[in-house]
């Protein structure tokens, strides 16, 4: 049943005008096709099952003007942002408002090739991924040669630089050749509450490729809409983690396809949500080939009047026998007004599988607080201690000491900041 096509919203009309004005892009068949896919469904509403808890069409009253190509002043502002940000890993690559800025970053390490260029067309079914594909000015491509092993993390810093309201589109491609090994961190920085960020990252691992990926979002964008499109060939292995502590409306969506036999994926995340923020993690892991292995582990701490969403779907296609999939989502609610919505789904079309999911929503166990208090620890401290432990267990899924330590520091800072903010309000 086709829903009666809603009339175009203000934001949809603006987006259509903006795309048409990007004449060079609009004339590129792949881009035009991507925009057409977006336009066909429009901004997602709750009627789209994958957007059941985030009504983007209602939330996005209009599309902000497109960020222009960065000028000298913008590059200087970008340098200042970078200077305040600790460098992670062996090489830093930088994008500014969705454009690759090689002058701000490092040369790629041996075995890695980096370029800003036209993205390869995808057939993303999701409207917002399609929109990024249509609108992004270029694509930052990181390719790791077959067999290469990169010694430390490559960090991609996505900067939002500029005054006032603007929107930006960034498209990133990470591709590992057969047997290659690498670690990539994507850090999103600089967005103010007037920024609408649309980001997409494709991850392709050839046979036996091994990638560890961390995405960290801590800035203040009005909208942070991020899609990861993941494709794993046989025996490839991906560990991907998302750390979310910012954004008024944050939506991370992960579409992973285990296309080759014996592929392994471990997805994890921690969302720290406070104030009136909304953070939505939606993922779909599709097992197409036999003997796939997937683990999903997501935790959220939801405070104040914030809303957390986790939707996870493990799908096992016919023939994907011996799939082993397990998903867990856990949330802690800290205030009477905080909300958590979880929808862990299994969709299974093969019989010889072991799949499971678990989901819990609860407050901090008062018995535990009491136990700690009885040992002389003040209540707030006890609470922070338990939350720190709760978050740290999720972060441990990164399975990399240095990266985990960095994330734990951010968790500790968030918890400390929260106590201060709570006191200020009291």
């Amino acid at each position: 049943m086709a829903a009666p096509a809603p009339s175009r919203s203000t934001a949809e009309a603006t987006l259509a005008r903006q795309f048409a004005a990007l004449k060079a892009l609009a004339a590129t068949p792949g881009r035009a096709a991507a925009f057409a896919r977006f336009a066909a469904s429009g901004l997602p509403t709750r009627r789209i099952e994958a957007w059941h808890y985030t009504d983007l069409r209602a939330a996005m009253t209009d599309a902000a003007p497109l960020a222009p190509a960065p000028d000298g002043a913008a590059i200087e502002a970008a340098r200042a942002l970078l200077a305040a940000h600790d460098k992670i890993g062996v090489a830093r690559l930088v994008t500014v408002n969705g454009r690759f800025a090689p002058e701000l970053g490092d040369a790629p390490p041996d075995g890695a090739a980096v370029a800003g260029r036209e993205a390869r067309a995808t057939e993303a079914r999701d409207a917002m991924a399609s929109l990024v594909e249509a609108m992004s000015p270029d694509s930052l491509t990181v390719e790791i040669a077959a067999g290469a092993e990169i010694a430390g993390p490559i960090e991609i810093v996505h900067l939002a630089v500029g005054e006032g309201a603007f929107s930006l589109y960034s498209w990133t491609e990470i591709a590992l050749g057969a047997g290659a090994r690498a670690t990539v961190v994507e850090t999103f920085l600089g967005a103010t509450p007037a920024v609408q960020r649309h980001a997409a990252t494709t991850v392709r691992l050839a046979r036996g490729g091994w990638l560890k990926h961390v995405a960290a979002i801590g800035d203040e964008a009005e909208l942070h809409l991020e899609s990861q499109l993941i494709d794993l060939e046989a025996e490839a292995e991906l560990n991907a983690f998302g750390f979310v502590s910012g954004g008024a409306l944050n939506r991370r969506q992960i579409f992973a396809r285990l296309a080759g036999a014996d592929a392994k994926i471990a997805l994890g995340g921690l969302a720290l949500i406070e104030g009136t923020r909304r953070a939505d993690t939606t993922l779909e892991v599709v097992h197409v080939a036999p003997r796939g292995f997937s683990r999903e582990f997501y935790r959220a701490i939801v405070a104040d009047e914030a809303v957390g969403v986790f939707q996870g779907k493990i799908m096992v296609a016919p023939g994907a026998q011996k799939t082993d999939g397990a998903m867990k989502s856990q949330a802690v609610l800290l205030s009477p007004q905080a909300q958590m919505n979880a929808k862990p789904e299994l969709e299974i079309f093969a019989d010889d599988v072991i799949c499971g999911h678990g989901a819990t929503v609860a407050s901090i166990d008062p018995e535990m607080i009491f136990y700690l208090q009885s040992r002389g620890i003040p209540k707030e401290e006890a609470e922070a201690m338990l939350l720190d432990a709760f978050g740290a267990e999720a972060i441990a899924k990164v399975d990399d000491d240095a990266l985990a330590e960095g994330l734990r520091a951010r968790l500790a800072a968030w918890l400390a900041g929260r106590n201060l903010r709570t006191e200020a309000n009291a």
Partner: protein
Amino acid sequence: MAAVQETVDRVRAIDVDAYKYGFVSAIESDVAPKGLNEGIVRFISAKKEEPEWLLAWRLDAYRRWLTMEEPKWARVDYPPIDFQDLHYFAAPKNAAGPRSLDDVDPELLRVYEKLGIPLVEQEILAGVEKPRVAVDAVFDSVSVATTFKAELAKAGVIFCSFSEAVHNHPELVKRYLGTVVPSTDNYYATLNSAVFSDGSFVYVPEGVRCPMELSTYFRINEKNTGQFERTLIIAEKGAYVSYLEGCTAPKRDENQLHAAVVELVALDDAEIKYSTVQNWYPGDAEGRGGIYNFVTKRGDCRGARSKISWTQVETGSAITWKYPSCILRGESSRGEFYSIAISNGRQQVDSGTKMIHLGRNTTSRIISKGVSAGRSQNTYRGQVSAHRLATGARNFTNCDSLLIGSECGAHTVPYIEAKNASAVIEHEATTSKVSEEQLFYCQQRGLSAEEATALIVNGFVRDVLQQLPMEFAVEAQKLIAISLEGSVG
């Protein structure tokens, strides 16, 4: 123990015709012309000699229905239903209110005998060991017999057909009808509100523990007939009632529509236990025929400390679309949902529950066991929500799926919505297959592959079977074995 033995016997006894309730009975009946319009709604209401307010209620629902769309969100797939190609009313002739069992058409009694449902009280009384069960038998659209009425009346319990309740207890019907499932609720419930023809009515007064199990057996016999029954059960303060419904239908090549509504109301400290053994004709192995079972069942825990417990064993129907739910309004009220859904052949099941926590310290528990075999699709769909004022709400959900064969599907779609920090919601789900190791172990002890599968499946669903009244648990166990017949290669 004995039950397993019977299961095994039953599996062995199965020959070609696996669906033993597939006979058609030669009962003369009154059938309304095909099609749906205001005239038909008036016709049904007139046939039942209903008061004006009820006709108005029906017409209101009918007009609303015209503006509604069929829900499409469930994982079920079927060709469009031509609502004008159905009869909306069929009643066995001479069944216009039998005064006693002696008035019931003997052919009808034989039908129920064939179904194994006792409608003759003496017979039941003669059986010394059997627990007594009062039965309301609904044939096509009409209640044909209700047993043990007199004895129930002594306890103050009203158990009668819905039509009788409209005439004899209009104030109760008027007060409660549509208060749990409003006539605007959803496409099928609204349709039911317009055209429902009969069903069962139960009222248990304050402080009364219903002295026996109550039971309704539904039977669709007529061709091209939709069945739209409506059940209303009210348990006053401190009352208790256990109710069971069973359903069968003849084998027919065309699909038949069953769109029922069940409303339960539990006041302070009341408890309603509602069990279903649903064995509508599931269609043949190729998916021809079978019942479309689109049912709205909801219980309202209106009073403090009230409790509603749904137990269902779903083995039949081509399509099952039902979500027996609880609205936990009263403080410290409790909802339970125990479900076994078995699908085989081309059956499609989309079933589950909603537990809506509104009141303080409300608790709920969901145990769902899905077994898919053949080329069937079996979906658990559930919602647990804890609202702002539901401080201290607790839910535990466990839903497990078992797959037999590589061409079926098992799906789990839970919605968990917490708007209260003191709520604790726990959900766990697993999907797996009957393990080769278990099968071999059983076979090494002498059980055939089919016996071993039945045994393992019965173990898998045991937690839920235990919730059924003893007699029905045995019946359900047999059904499960029959439903899985032919699923082991």
